[in-house]
């Protein structure tokens, strides 16, 4: 439910952009600036890459006494209010019975979503770049060893995040299946986000999630390219891919699939 709300938010505010939706409330706590994030390379050509938080920051994997102290910039991001139209309308007669395609049977269902006023927090990149010169990553840290074991992962750091400034309520409205003529009609879920102002809770929903402020709902990362000796660089351009030097970025990834579907694998297209 939280994942769907954050995904919808980015679809409206950052389509095709670099922000990544937070998919779990638990991850929201882990999303500190300079947190380590692992990017998993996609398997099929159409997939978006998946990201996983590590419970550590870059300071935990630098060689001794080399901490980075980022300057954090804060700014208003957007006041988000979205209006959605749900589902096709009407009913259909079938050979087996009648199917109603939305809860009411007629009309369009509209819902509004609002995370309220959102704030953007980001690391001052110029300062970060200056400060990270000559810093080294300890490749022998147990955490990195585990990342290195999996060949299809890239290390990233979190450099920006979008946080809520007000308490919000995420509720799920199930458009109930209708049983007609022995058949089950359409059942879908709508997710609605609303800023909680007067403590009222929506009654017509099955699940309600109240999220406190500040909760991270989206974030941006920078990929790292880590050399064999522990030196690293940030991949500032889209064309520049992160990874570990000992692993050739173009080398084979240990993917296992049936030979029939080979042309659709990500590496074939990339």
């Amino acid at each position, binding site marked *: *439910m939280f*994942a*769907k709300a954050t*995904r*919808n938010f980015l679809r409206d505010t950052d389509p095709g952009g670099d922000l990544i939706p937070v*998919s*779990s409330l*638990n991850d929201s706590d882990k999303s500190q600036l300079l947190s380590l994030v692992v990017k*998993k390379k996609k*398997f*099929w*050509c*159409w*997939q*978006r890459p*998946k990201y996983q938080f590590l419970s550590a920051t870059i300071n935990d994997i630098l060689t001794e006494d080399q901490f980075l102290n980022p300057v954090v910039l804060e700014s208003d991001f957007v006041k988000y209010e979205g209006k959605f139209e*749900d*589902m*096709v309308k*009407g*009913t*259909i007669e*079938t050979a087996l019975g009648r*199917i109603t*395609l939305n809860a009411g049977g007629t009309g369009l269902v509209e819902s509004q979503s609002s995370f309220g006023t959102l704030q953007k927090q980001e690391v001052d990149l110029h300062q970060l770049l200056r400060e990270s010169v000559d810093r080294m990553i300890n490749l022998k840290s147990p955490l990195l060893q585990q990342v290195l074991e*999996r060949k*299809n992962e890239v290390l990233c750091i979190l450099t920006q995040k979008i946080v809520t400034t007000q308490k919000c309520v995420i509720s799920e409205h199930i458009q109930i299946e209708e049983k007609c003529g022995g*058949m*089950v*009609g*359409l*059942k*879908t*879920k709508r997710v609605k986000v609303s800023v909680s102002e007067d403590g009222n809770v929506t009654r017509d929903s099955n699940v309600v999630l109240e999220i406190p402020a500040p909760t991270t709902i989206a974030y941006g990362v920078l990929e790292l390219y880590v050399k064999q000796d522990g030196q690293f660089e940030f991949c500032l351009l889209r064309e520049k891919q992160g990874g570990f030097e000992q692993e050739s970025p173009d080398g084979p*990834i*240990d*993917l*296992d*699939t*049936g030979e*029939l*579907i*080979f*042309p*659709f694998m990500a590496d*074939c*297209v990339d």
Partner: protein
Amino acid sequence: GNSKAGELMPTEGPLSSLKHGMLLMERNFRPFVELSGQHQAALWEILWEILVEDELLMALGTVLDDVFTGGSPRLTALPELSRGQRRRLATFLGLAGLQVREDLLVAREARGALDLPSAVHFFISALAEMPDKAPALMGSCCKLHMVPALCHLPQATSPDGFLALGDPSLAVLEDAQRFEIVRELFALSNISLEHAGSAVKAVIMEKPQYLPLLLYIILNGLCALERRDE
């Protein structure tokens, strides 16, 4: 491999341009066709539940990606899911030819001649990348038995993008309400369907990304699984 992948990338133009990939998609879903009727029916039943539960669909995509990149994911590591959802996931994975141990660790058995898990991974990954409303609309198309007709559309479309109504195989497009469902589903997949006199114009929109391809992967998968009816 590279040239085939390039040819399969959808571009703006008539829906008929997708037909080059149809044979490959049909071949990929052969493991679905070759299942016993009982196995197909069981897979179908649980798939119907997954189509309307997006959390389950996302989790399934993640688990299958993990398995196919050499991992052994554990379903208990999916805190967002309820116990019932995990149970449904385990049932689906079992029917998809994967091993689900008692401690909910998922693993892949040695690959057989018919690679059912690969076909399932292919299908679920496409489904997981579709816009939110698409799986439910897809479910409606299944319930209304429209899937085989929709699979046939790229072959039936003329090189300039027209589908001539009156062809019995295109009857689904003649019913106004069925057409509305199909139009909405195709619009979500960046394919425009519009009535034009006694025909329907079917065109892949500008910058369609992978969505038309994904739609047809899913339709072909559903069609292969539905053959138990024949």
